[in-house]
Structure formats: structure tokens, C-alpha cells
């Protein structure tokens, strides 16, 4: 998965979790949870769906890397 593909995946998952939010306006460095008002259960859904779609295991220790679109895309595209 390239960082571009990862970014699209993250946005589409966010669109399902917070249908009211406009993910196109989400800037690369903005904190996703704060900007979209996701609570801890939303975030858990987010992580689960990302893991399913990318096939990558995501541990709790990896959560900080999913804070923004930029860091999240890099993480999913990484090894």
C-alpha cells in the first residue's frame, strides 16, 4: 500500500465512522480525533476497520501514529 492509497483508505473509513464530517477538509497535520470529535469507541472502530482493510496488525502502542492523516498514511504504508 502506497501512502496515497493509505490516505484514501483512512478517509473512506472516517467517512463511515463519522458520516457527518467532511473528510476532504481534513488537513494532513490536523489531529483526527479532535477535529472530528471521535470518542474512544469511535477510535477503536477506526483502528479495527483500518486493520481489516490494510491487513496490518495495529497495536495500542501504534495508536499515536494514527493521530493525523500524514502520520497515519506513513504508518500504514510502512513495513
Amino acid at each position, binding site marked *: 500500500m502506497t501512502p496515497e492509497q493509505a490516505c484514501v483508505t483512512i478517509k473512506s473509513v472516517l467517512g463511515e465512522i*463519522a*458520516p*457527518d464530517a467532511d473528510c476532504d477538509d481534513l488537513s494532513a497535520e490536523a489531529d483526527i480525533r*479532535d477535529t472530528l*470529535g*471521535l*470518542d*474512544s*469507541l469511535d477510535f*477503536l472502530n477506526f*483502528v*479495527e476497520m483500518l*486493520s481489516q482493510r490494510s491487513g496490518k*496488525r*495495529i*497495536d*495500542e502502542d501504534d495508536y499515536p501514529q494514527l493521530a493525523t492523516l500524514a502520520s497515519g498514511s506513513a504508518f500504514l504504508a510502512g513495513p
Partner: protein
Amino acid sequence: MAEMYGKTTGCSGGLGGSMHLFDVKTRFYGGNAIVGGGLPLAVGLALADRMRGDARVTACFFGDGAVAEGEFHECLNLAALWQLPVLFCCENNFYAMGTALDRAQAQTDLSVRAASYGMPSWPVDGMDVHGSGRGGAITRYDVERAAASMRRDRVTPLARRLAAELGVDLKIVTGTGAGGAVRADDVRRAATADRPAEEAPGPVTPAPEARLPEVPAREGRQPAGPATTVRRPERAEAMRLAIARLMSRSKREIPHYYVSNTVDLGAALSWLRERNRSVPMSARMVPAALLLKAAALAAREVPELNGFWAEDHFVPAPAVHLGVAVSLRGGGLITPAIHDAADLPAAELMSRLRDLVNRARAGRVRGSELTDATITLTNLGDQGVESVTGVIYPPQVALVGLGKITERPWAVNGLLGIRPVVITTLAADHRADGYTGARYLSLLAELLQKPEEL
């Protein structure tokens, strides 16, 4: 006759005898040996039809003796109150069990008794029956008209509660349900569209208010589309109004007192991290689940805070049904309950919480979940605030508030360290209790130090 003789070929298989003739095939639900005993059964049948949406009318026959029974009055009252499709026929022979009517009854025109329940009634000469047909014959039209006049006022129970709360006159609401029945959505639409500027003081009773933000189950099953998006702001507005009333009432009537405590979550979070590492991703728990479990257990240990304030005294609840404040996307807040939360293992509580939040946001919460909470918890920590002191949901007597888990310098055994902490608060009703709030929060803190036992 076979039934009278107790033969198996009788309509009741010979078991009914002369007093209990019945035949389900012809929808004849039986004679009754008790004077007036058929009336409650008829009202029950009509209520069943109403609830199942079957377009039927129940006919109930009784004699003039039955009108002196309490059941007669109770049944007419309920049938009129709930607008049930029942046709009550009193066969008046003027000599119930051999007593002349005018020796036992002050009012001998029995048809006027129905008037006291606001029910249309007519005396009919049984020897010369009149309908609208040729020669006074009773026609299909007569029956349908009778049924239609009953159906006109069909309102779902939720819609009725909502209308009472929002001060909506049901007569002006156009029903869109089956057979023109008025549904909750119709009331909400009327409330937002036609509401006069000044506020109509509605009847205020505790339980219906608490149930208000209920969303009918069928709404969730509708396909997403324009209809859903159109309805949403109205629903949010009606909900806003309901919350406004309930919270104003809480602040007006309940003398709140508040206590707060900062709790070290170091042990709880490291236990949770270890646990989550060893389970599949779908079984991971969030800290909120542990906090919920501890809050429920503490409520069980401090029963003075778990229950209701009703008619000037506290009524403890037999179980802990933990209400959880859930914010809805697009505005609004509901507090559905997790039943028997203190008895559930933490992992089970976690999956219930996920399920509940998902359903709440999809508008698929069950009615019982919205009415049964015995104590409520609000967790604003996810929104980034350090602490929250809440407003109690009447008629409950306590509300637990949880803030954000933050890292703070913390002294343990004379040494300073960095620990994750959470500020827990409790708002409690001073009428019900004046000091156990402190005990509750200390217990909550204690329980959170032993996460493995939760």
C-alpha cells in the same frame, strides 16, 4: 347440545360444559360463569388487535346485572381511554338474576352509563333492530362506520407521551402510520412546524420525560435517503426541547450537592494494556469500560445512590442499571441503560457498551433501555475536558461524571512520578442523601486500583 352433555364432540371438547362454551374457529371466545367476566377478556382481545395492528372489532355481550360490577366500569373506562375497538352490548331483560332493575339501580336507562366514559351509546330495541339498510337491516356500512370512528383517534403510545410532553394537540396532527395512526414522527413534525411562540405548559410527570428521546425502532430500518436527512433536524430539535425541560426541572427541583476526587489510573491502564496485547483486536477494551464497571459496582455497594426519588422519599432500585450518556451525531444526547451492569464481567460490559453506542447513533435503542436507568454516568473525557459535574436525571438521585485521563505529577510513597489520572465527580440529590456521595467516590477509586478484580 353435545357440549352440554360433556361429549368430546362438543364445541369445547366436552370440557367447557354449559358455562364455558367457546369456539375459536368462529372467533367466539367463550361464555363466562362470572357475572361481567367477559368484559375484561373482550377489552384484552381488542387491545391485542390494536397492538398487532389487526383491523378487527370485538363484540362483547353481557346482561343488565353486569353493569353493577366494578369490572364493567373499569373496562368501559380503559376501552374509551385507549380507544379500543370494542362493541359493548348490554342485553337488558330488566330482571338480572330475578331482581327487578328499578329495585337495584338508581338509573334504569343503562345506555347512559357509557356516556360517563365519553363513549357513544344508543338504546336499541332488541325486538326491532335498526340499521341503515333496507327495513332497518344492519349492513357492512354500519359496522365499518363504527370501526372507523374508533380508528380516527389511533395514536401510538410513544406519540401520545411525546404529544403530552411537547404540548401538541393530537387533534391537529395528521397521522402517517397504518390506518392513519399518529406516530411519534408526526407529533415531532407538528411540534416543530406549528408550535406557537409562547410555551404551552405541558403536564409534567417524571417517567415520560425520561423516556422522551426515544426513537421508534422502525426508523432505523428505513433505507438511508432524502427522508432520513429531512427528518433529522426535527428529531434533534424535539430532543433538544425534551432535554431542556428535563434538565430545567432537575435544577429547579433537585438540591444537588457535588463531590470530586482525582484517581490514579496507573494500575488500571497498565493492566488494560497487557490484557489488550494478548487478545484479538475485536476484544480490546477501552478504559471507559473499566470505569463503567467500577462505577456500577460502587453503586451496588452504596445503594443509597442507586434508585429514584418518588413522592417525597427515596426508593432504592433492586439492580444497577447504569445509564450512559451518549452524544448523537448531529446533536442530541440520550442516556440508555446497560441492564444489570454490576453483574457483568468487564469484557461483556465493553461489548454491551459498543453495541449500545452503535445502536443509539443508528436510532435503534429499545424503549426499556431508555427508561430503566437507576444511576447515570457521563464521560466527557473523550471530548477533552478535565472534569464534568453533571445534572441529575430525574427521578434518579445521582450522576457520576468522568473527565479526561491525563498524565500528571503524582506523589506515591513520598516519591514524585508521572501517573495517568482521572477526575471523578458525583452530583447527588441532597433530599435522598447528604454524605454517601463521598463514600461512593472513595470506593470507586479503590475499585480502580484492582482492575483484575473488575
